[in-house]
């Protein structure tokens, strides 16, 4: 990753120059420390998710009423829930569903959003007007409410959660893509390509898309944490994944009822969720600061 450093020529005086070179050395390190810490956390969760079957000491849905609502012990590190299911195993498998929903819904939303944004930005005219007014309308609904409404139409289940979240992400992605396309379109090399009779498809794929890719991908990265937050929220509300799927939101909802007797039931999966979200936020913030020249120096 290369980071553009601010020019020091305009600075005057040795002290400023020393400060400047110190900052030039220190800032990227600081920034990358943040991103690295986030990356470490996220990688840990990805590993747990991938190797959940090998790591989990029990089956995530195996019920054992003799061992129900046991506190953390050597046998069950995170305790058991009201069905006697091992919470550690369920938390491991929960990482799977959380990361999968986050990744899949953002990718799907990104795909459709980019298509809509490209179409609007490149075509212009009535198509752009109509598409953007639809996007304005979609963006007038708060994301969670929008996702809840989609769940009401689609029905419960993991695939529908992914679809509902993806649909509520189309608006923001489309708006950003269109704005970026309009900027890129005004640049001379696009006009040059047009004059050279480069086919429209090639202009889009080789000249427009690469130039809007990095801001969009950063936005997509930040959205993964929102997606995971919304998905677990939907499950918590009883409008998402259905039991007995191991899902953190569901586990917290179930644990809420037993909070006085078995606080670990909600506590453990919640800690996992919060840690993953911290990791994702750190990673996204670190990357944004490092890549986006506008926010450089903001967190100094």
């Amino acid at each position: 990753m290369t980071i553009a450093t601010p020019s020091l020529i305009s600075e005057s005086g040795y002290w400023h120059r020393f400060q400047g070179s110190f900052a030039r050395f220190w800032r990227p390190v600081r920034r990358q420390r943040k991103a690295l810490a986030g990356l470490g956390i996220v990688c840990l969760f990805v590993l747990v998710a991938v190797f959940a079957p090998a790591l989990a000491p029990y089956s995530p849905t195996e019920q054992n009423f003799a061992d129900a609502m046991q506190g953390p012990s050597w046998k069950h590190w995170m305790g058991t829930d009201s069905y006697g299911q091992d919470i550690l195993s369920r938390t491991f498998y929960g990482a799977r569903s959380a990361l999968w929903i986050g990744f899949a819904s953002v990718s799907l939303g990104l795909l459709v959003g980019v298509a809509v944004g490209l179409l609007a930005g490149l075509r212009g005219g009535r198509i752009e007007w109509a598409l953007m007014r639809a996007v304005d309308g979609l963006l007038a609904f708060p994301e969670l409410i929008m996702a809840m409404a989609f769940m009401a139409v689609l029905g419960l289940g993991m695939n529908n959660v992914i679809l509902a979240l993806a649909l509520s992400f189309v608006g923001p992605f489309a708006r950003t893509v269109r704005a970026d396309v309009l900027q890129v379109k005004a640049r001379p090399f696009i006009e040059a390509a047009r004059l050279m009779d480069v086919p429209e498809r090639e202009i889009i794929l080789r000249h427009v898309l690469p130039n809007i890719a990095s801001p969009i991908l950063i936005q997509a990265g930040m959205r993964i944490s929102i997606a995971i937050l919304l998905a677990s929220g939907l499950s918590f509300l009883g409008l998402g994944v259905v039991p007995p799927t191991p899902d953190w939101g569901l586990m917290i909802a179930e644990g809420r009822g037993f909070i006085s007797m078995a606080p670990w039931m909600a506590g453990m999966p919640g800690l996992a969720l919060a840690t993953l979200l911290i990791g994702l936020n750190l990673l996204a913030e670190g990357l944004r600061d490092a890549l986006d020249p506008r926010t450089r120096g903001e967190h100094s």
Partner: protein
Amino acid sequence: MKVAANSLELRASRLWQSLGAVAQTALVLLVVSGISFLFLKLSPGDPVALMLGSDFSRDSYDQLYRNLGLDRPWLQQYFHWLSRFVLGEWGSSYVSKQDIFELAVLQALPVTLTLAALSLLVALAVGIPLGVLAAIKRNSWMDILASAIAIGGNAFPSFYLGVVLIWIFSVAFGWFPSMGYVSPWSDPLGGLWHLALPALTLGAWYVGLIATVTRSSLLEVLEQPYMAAARARGEPEWRVIWVHGMRNVLMPLVTIIGLQLGGMLRGAVMTEVVFTLPGLGMMITNAVQTREYLVVQAGIMITALLFIAVNLLVDRTYTILDPRLRKK
């Protein structure tokens, strides 16, 4: 003479601008209502069968079908629905037989608004001093605490934080109730007592954000010449910070509060369900579960209207807070 012409021109352009803003809002409202209408049309299940219950004849079915106007084209149905919506005739709930307008606007909405206002108050009361201290004592433990709260508050989902707070303050200490709603408008003490944990849960999310924005904007302001001028005039330090400094922090604060309204509503829905408060979030959640699509529709319309209204309000506040914008 020239000045007069200019001001006339200015006024005309301003009028034109606000007309444009009104037209744009009206258009968004139209699209929003269209989406809400489509939602009802696309939702599964047969509304006529739902209204009639389990036992009905073919004739009564057909009659109700026609009475509801379901045999007419969608566009006509849409305008019929919209005109009834504007008049507050939102139909009644299949389950409780209650009037939906009454249920949503008169009962649920005030609960959500009260919760949101109280949470914002908590967040401002904690977040602004925290941000100011973090800016003045940069890189101190206060500064580190502020950024830790910002990162944590962003990562702890409201529903989880709510459960944790219930565990600590209701179960372990027994200081606050974990559920139930008492309106603070009719019973101030009891109401605030019941809303303390929910407001803290929802407010915590905002605290970090407000502290971060206050800190970074104040840091910028501190370097401005008028701050040095105020100090040079011999004004006390608290006045320099809170009067001259904070006045210029208000703009970015209002911006971030407006921008994060979606997060606030998201948090409010979850907080209401955690603490079983009878607000909009609880209403929509229950309605989705019992498949009462009319109620869901009312809920999403109200939240969208709320969203649009607050955004307009934020735009207005700019011109009040920053005189420079008025001159344009």
